[in-house]
């Protein structure tokens, strides 16, 4: 699903955000991506989402070598990736329904045709009945779940989450994580960037740890977590 081969990313100005990172995330796998702020988590996610291009190395997503993906094809690749953001990135002037339906509208669905899928997605995240609300009428946790519903509404094979629990209390965070687990259960690959080490420890999934742009650990959560925890 995701394959990084010796990927380095240097920003204009010379800052090297990623140094020869290699890893693979298989279809239907769930993994955490962790590390301090500035360790390169965001850069890694942005490379996957085609918001940045690798300076050196190869990134393969869904069998597409991103070096060969032209500007025009970028939107179509992104449709296969459900993205979830810490700040939700909802459209505040649109209803919850229209927010969730956005990926479907873009693919050419009409409002009527999108209804069933939107309702299924909102059901899944526990927000059934809020279709006509606006994002500002919802709590932070609910807004995050709207963002998740939008990410899954067109059933992408891969979910990327950037600090999805960043602004939530532990109980809500756990609920969100359980949600990701449930998507993973039906075969969706999930990559979650987070620095919530406690959460990672409880979940026992594969964890990729970045430090100063290098992949320093790739394995089960508890080992790097203790290491990192002691540093903290």
């Amino acid at each position, binding site marked *: 699903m995701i394959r990084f081969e010796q990927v380095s990313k240097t920003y204009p100005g010379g800052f090297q955000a990623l140094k020869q990172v290699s890893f693979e995330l298989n279809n239907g796998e769930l993994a955490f991506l962790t590390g301090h702020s500035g360790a390169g988590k965001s850069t890694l996610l942005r490379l996957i989402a085609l*918001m940045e291009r690798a300076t050196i190395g190869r990134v393969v997503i869904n069998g597409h070598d991103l070096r060969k993906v032209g500007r025009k094809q970028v*939107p179509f690749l992104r449709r296969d990736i459900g*993205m979830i953001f810490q700040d939700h990135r909802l*459209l505040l002037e649109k209803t919850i329904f229209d927010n969730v339906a*956005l990926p479907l509208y*873009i693919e050419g669905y*009409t409002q009527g045709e999108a209804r069933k899928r939107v309702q299924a997605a909102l059901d899944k995240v526990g927000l059934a009945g809020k279709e006509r609300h606006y994002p500002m009428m919802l709590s932070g946790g609910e807004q995050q779940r709207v963002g998740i519903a*939008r990410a899954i509404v067109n059933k992408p094979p891969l979910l990327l989450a950037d600090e999805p629990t960043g602004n939530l209390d532990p109980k809500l965070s756990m609920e969100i994580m359980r949600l990701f687990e449930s998507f993973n259960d039906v075969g969706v690959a999930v990559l979650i960037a987070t620095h919530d080490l406690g959460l990672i420890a409880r979940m026992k999934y594969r964890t990729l740890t970045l430090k100063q742009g290098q992949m320093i650990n790739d394995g089960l959560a508890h080992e790097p977590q203790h290491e990192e925890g002691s540093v903290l």
Partner: protein
Amino acid sequence: MSSGKVNISWFRRFTMFWVHNLQQALGSLGELTRNPVASMMTIFVLGLSLTLPSTLYVVVKNSQAVTSGLNDAAEISLFLRKDLTASDVETFAQRMQLRTDVERVEVVAKDQGLREFRELSGFGSALDYLQENPLPDVVIVFPTAEFRSVERAQGLLAELSQAREVTSASLDLQWLERLQALIRLVEDALGALALLLCSAVILIVGNTIRLMILNRRDEIVVMKLVGATDGYIQRPFLYTGFWYGLIGGIVAWVATALLVWWIARAVAGVTVLYDSQFRLSGLNLQELMVLWGIAVGLGLLGSWIAVRRHVAAIEPR
């Protein structure tokens, strides 16, 4: 949640594309009403900018109609000596009538001339102070068709002005030539002016759309993140430009009609003095459609330039 892709048949994609276009078109129209002042200002700038060239066009068109009418009715006015009697005038007119190069002759006796002048000029009471009629008898000679061209008519004029009874003769061609040169000048100026104003319209629409795009930057970023193509994002803005043009065109119609009506009143005053049946004609249906088409075209072009530059420039960071 299975990871199956959305499968949509080619035909459905095609129909949905048009359904979606319609929705986006109506959506952009709704967007205009949400920002009525800004939209109205742009629409009015567009419409009023087109009004000036279209009104000038109407004026030029009408003056062309007038001058082509004048061309046909080339006539030679012969001003006769004042000491001629009425019967002398009559004989002279008959002699002219007998010429093969003359189609017909019209006599404007001095009394009749004075009467018309009194009625039409507005100097009626002033004329009462005159001791005697200052006007000469006039014989208007209409050449036959083949003598109406400029050179032939001038030849005829030279010949007729030699006649013993004639003090002076005039063929109103020189002023006609001057008028035509003047009209050509106005036409050229009109072209340049229209070009300038159209460029201004494109820039104004482009700038308005640019601001709209920048205002909705966050929304565009989100749309790009969930996989919207540039085309999908551009379409509502292009439709906005389209509506600007469509409504601006109607504004241009109304404003042109008002201006033409205004000018027509002034023209009517002049044509009465010239004893003419001339009526200023406004834009016909075809010209209205062309004006509308130009307005829509400019709106689209302006928005197209803006979206080409700015939608692509907004990338998620």
